């Protein structure tokens, strides 16, 4: 199954090429991250579909069509400027980054924590917690720490 960097690369490239919509592999992790991007307003729609187009009507995922299943993201632009400039991984298999709540608070406050650059205004961090894939602010509200998988700005 593709790692998070696959989604990051596809989304970034899609924005740079000024595409209207892109198709990414349909996995639980990808869906969770795409939902966060949608809730934060980086992407205008997230839909399931096949490799040609998003589903017009509801199509259940079966063993027959699983190979063609995709997640379609509709990208957002204004004045030829993309809503998302960079979606980069933070925690890598070679160096995992797991934060406690206090370290997350430092990041949110504009201070660096554990060699991770602080969040600029308008930047978000996506982390994988035991309460699911959450955005940094949501995780702070629920008082859970976790592994920072990506940051988007």
């Amino acid at each position, binding site marked *: 199954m593709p790692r998070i960097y696959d989604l990051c690369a596809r989304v970034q490239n899609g924005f740079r090429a000024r595409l209207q919509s892109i198709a990414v592999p349909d996995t639980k992790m990808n869906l969770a991250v795409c939902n966060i991007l949608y809730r*934060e*307003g*980086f992407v205008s729609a997230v839909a399931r579909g096949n490799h040609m187009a998003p589903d017009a009507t509801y199509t259940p995922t079966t063993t027959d069509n699983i190979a063609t299943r995709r997640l379609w993201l509709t990208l*957002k632009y*204004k004045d030829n*400027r993309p809503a998302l400039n960079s979606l980069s991984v933070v925690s890598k298999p070679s160096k995992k980054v797991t934060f406690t709540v206090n370290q997350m608070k430092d990041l949110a406050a504009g201070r660096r924590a554990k060699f991770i650059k602080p969040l*600029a*205004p*308008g930047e978000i961090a996506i982390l994988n917690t035991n309460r699911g894939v959450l955005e940094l602010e949501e995780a702070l509200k629920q008082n859970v720490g976790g592994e920072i998988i990506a940051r988007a700005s």
Partner: protein
Amino acid sequence: MNARDSLKFTMIAKKHKNLETTLSSQYSCCQGSMQSISRAFSKLSVASYSKTLNAAVPCALIRSYATTSNRAPRHRLLDESNAADLSKVDPILDFSDNKPANLDQSKTFPFNRPPEVVLNTVTDNVDTPLDRLEQMRLLKKALVVKRVVNMNGKGKQPSMYALVVVGNGNGLAGYGEGKDEEASRAVRKATNRAIKNMRYFERYDERTLAMDVSHKFHATTIHLRSRPPGFGNRSNHYIHEICRCVGIHDLSGKVMGSRTPMNVIKATFEALQHQKFPEEIAQLRGKKLADVQHTYYGAQ
């Protein structure tokens, strides 16, 4: 003859050395004088002055006045027919009450000077909405002045290149380049172009940037970081000068890669131009923006 005529009278006088004050002599002296006028002053005695007079004869002065007599014309072309007619000028009514504050003439006399032909002039007519006073009050700094050479078939043609940064310290700033034979003229050209190229740069709190900025221009990478009030301008000296003109007081900056002055200045201006603002981001993403510093910490 009435008193009016007497006032208009221009005194008739003659300079003679040995002159006795007699009416007859007076008559004989005033040759060709206007008969009517002389008759009015027949009772007056025009005293004569002479070095050789006796002590018994009273010494007196001959005053010479402007005269319209034919004997001593003022100008060879001026005679009685040509003379101005002063009969229409009234001494009281023809002099207005509103006196000027000083006697300076409003119009200078016209002069015929050959037009100066100056080759290679630099005109200071800059096409801006700013007027001359505002242009004078702008902060101007010639950051780069160097000698450049153009190789021709004829040989080396040296000229001076100037890069001038201009700003009002309150958001308006621009830069201009100029080349000329003389350095001063090149700087002037550059200043005029800079004033023409001025644009408004948005700042946060009118003292710093809204967000950290990283920008690459040719081989120069500029990192500009927003800093709290009172921090000061701690960056490359060219960035420092540009920020002074723009009005950015708190900044931390670093130039990576090439530090060529020309490119550093151009890179800084581009970086300031390509800033992203939190308001724009919030609008694009459909989020509500709250300035924590202003709302909660009471910053002005």
